[in-house]
């Protein structure tokens, strides 16, 4: 296992003043929704877990994958999903992840002005889960929504003390292309559907 994977980073300690403010959440939601992202607000861990299960049920998902998380209890989610006969794997099994219809992972920051979510994606597990399945559900803490892209860079500089993580992913809406006749088409190589659950 690489050195960086084991490193535990504390994002909350380095957020700018005012991060997570109500108007930042509002702007985040508005910008993300304009990009077809579904934004769900959860006041508690349990509410978030319920919302995640509900989303998968609604989409009639049979196979889903996830990674270990801190904002929600993935074991509780797994048990709830199993009751719904939804297969949910937390294993780093490349081919299973590729076959899955739904992936869930945790993101570290939100950007209000853009509806963007940011993830330290040094973990290959996180990357596969957030890239390969056609739907991705990202869990973020409402408190970590900062105002601007430049703010997010400042946080990153502080969090990693000037040595940014090997792989940082900024995600703004679903995967898309307009390469044929400039017609916007959703869902090329990455997920065509993006859901963000903001946990208070």
């Amino acid at each position, binding site marked *: *296992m*690489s050195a*960086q*994977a084991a490193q535990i980073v504390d994002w909350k300690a380095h957020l700018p003043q005012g991060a997570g403010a109500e108007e930042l959440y509002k702007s985040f939601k508005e*910008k993300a929704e304009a990009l077809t992202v579904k934004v769900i607000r959860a006041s508690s861990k349990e509410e978030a877990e319920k919302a995640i299960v509900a989303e998968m049920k609604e989409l009639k998902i049979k196979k889903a994958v996830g990674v270990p998380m801190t904002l929600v209890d993935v074991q509780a989610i797994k048990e709830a999903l199993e009751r719904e006969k939804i297969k949910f794997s937390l*294993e*780093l*099994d*490349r*081919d299973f992840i*590729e076959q899955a219809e739904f992936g869930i992972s945790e993101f570290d920051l939100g950007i209000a*002005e*853009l509806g*963007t979510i940011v993830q330290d*994606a*040094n*973990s*290959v597990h996180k*990357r*596969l889960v957030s*890239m390969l399945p056609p739907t991705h559900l990202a869990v973020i803490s409402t408190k970590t929504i900062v105002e*601007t*892209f*430049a703010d997010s*860079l*400042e946080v*990153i*500089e502080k969090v990693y003390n*000037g*040595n*940014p*993580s*090997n*792989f*940082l*992913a*900024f*995600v*703004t*809406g*679903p*995967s*898309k*292309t*307009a*390469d*044929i*006749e*400039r*017609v916007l*088409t959703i*869902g*090329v*190589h*990455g*997920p065509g559907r993006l859901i963000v659950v903001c946990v208070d």
Partner: protein
Amino acid sequence: MPIDSAFKVKINKALNDPNLRGALGKFGDIFPEARANVYKGIDFEELRGIIAQNKANAAANVEALANQFVENVVKRGGKVHRAKDGNDVYQILKEIAKARNAKVCVKSKSMASEEIHLNHHLEDTMQMVETDLGEWIIQQINEKPSHMVMPAIHLSKEKCAEIFSQALGYEVEPDIPTMVRLARKTLREHFMNADVGISGCNIAVAETGTMVIFTNEGNARLTATMPPVHVVLVGYEKLAEKFKDIAPIAKALPKSATAQTLTSYVTMISGPAETLKDKVGPEIVDKELHVILLDNGRRELLSDPVFKEAGQCIRCASCLNVCPVYQLVGGHVFGHIYAGGIGSLLTAFFNSLKDTDKVQEMCIGCGRCREFCPGKIDIPNLILEMRNRVRKEIPLPGMQNFIVGTVLRNKGLFEFGLRQASWASAPFTSKGKDGNKYIRSLPFGFKKLADWRSLPGFATTPFRDKIKSMKQEVSGKKGKIAFFGGCVIDYAYPEIGESLVRVLNREGYEVVYPDQTCCGAPAVYMGRQDVAQDIAKQNLEQFANDEFDYIVSACPTCTVALKENWGHVLKDDHVAKEKADKVAAKSLDFIKLMHTLKKEKGGVWEEVAATCDVACPTPIKVTYHDSCHLNRELGVKEEPREMLKVQAHLDFIEMEESDRCCGFGGSYCIKLPEISTELLNRKLKNIENSQADIVAVDCPGCLMSLRGGLDTKKSNKRVFHTAELLDGKY
């Protein structure tokens, strides 16, 4: 060889390609508004000022930044290779592939790899798979991108379906979502099997060793994730000093490129991230991360005293999206590998002067790209510099070279030629609907000059003779103004000069016409600054005279010559430069001068013309066509409108796309009439739709072009110079 018949065939093919015209035309038309929407609330001038400054600083410190970047990448566990050219890149990649026994390579978009024809040179080593949808499509038919951001914009969905059918071995319907789904499926297999991933890089941060990649499809993330080896191809011009310098580029690039607030994915790689052992895992190992730092002419570009400015490019391609010429012909004609105006500059360094020779000739110099460039690059003027450099290596063909090098340079010969033109063209001249003389067709090899729009008949008496007999009655004389007439007014439209004299007389100034020759602009536009130097000196002898309060021209191209070109071409000749600066300081275009004089009177606008020549019970509807040089080079936009609006006899209305180039472009319309015709027709359509009776212009070149076009179309609209309108001659 400058533009030749083979190149003309390419141009005509592009002009007659409905797919190309449809796709590019549509995008070009919607882009400015879409872009303006995403930039709402953002101070673009401030933003591009920051980007330009950061990029210029990075260029000035490129060697130090490169060293710092390399050091940081190595410190984090990446391997760095410096490549002086394409050959180096092929060798480095072949070795990487050999060490891994690699068979399949997935590639996410990289213009640098296109520039060195990477796929072609590596296809014997590995299967090279482009994974950006547009790139994958053109790879199937062995084409080069026609746009830096949208490589397959020149292909229709029907053509794409054919390509898909051919590549997949079964019939694919021309349905875009279906094709995108099939591309996902097909390329996913390649991602799962690939041994090596190659990607480009938009920003390389020296401070942290971070490489930033912007994509929408997500192929760069997969390229950087799935294979155990990731190679990033980084051009020296991508270096940025600080991590925080990413922010301004991230703010501008997606907005200027595709009118998006941000691309779907921004990937920042600062070291070898985790990967699955032997592609499948589940054991986790560190990725093998290689960085190839590519020179291939970049260091020469970044250290060039003139062209280093082109290094401020962030490859958004908004200059292409707003270029009226690119919109007509696309990047396979207006481009070598990098397309459009900026492409013609980069090509000279990344490829060769020969490769940019014809491409740079496509620029009409309208200056629209400069207003949009987030790197604040003066693309049109750099192209003129490039033309000058190209023409030193590759001269113009004999006749053109003789005209610009000998006739234009020689004052007497030039005047003689123009005077002869008057009687020589007389037999082909007849009267138009508006009462002016036109040449509608010319015999022999000159046919192309007049068959798409009528030319003006030459005046029997040039202005230089006419002014001698003009009685100038100036009451309450305030001073003396020297008039630089320019060839078009002098020999084709002396009446504009006469109006100018009368209007300025009324303002209290005597107008004199010092001995003069061509302003030298044609020489500059044809890449002969050496000729322009001689011409400028001849004119300066007469114009650098303290007795003139102002120097006025009624041709914005001449005004640009007086205000900018003369000083520029004579920058190394101190004595002449001093004179040129003196002239530049008091030179104004006619309408700007009128605006200034009126403003001096306390800023109260008053009518200039007391009456008009024809009885007009109701005000005449007049619209305004902006000359590119006046509007974008001299920054005069509102002044003519303000002057026209206060005229009681005129009812001013704006037309659509009033600032879009009319296609004249001086020698451009002789060099590339095919392009000029298309540009002119669009302008004429806007004029017809405007409901105006009169089109006001400030440039006699535009006037010539518009009158000629309207005459050919048998239109009732009339075109006047503002000097004539302010003189009541309409």
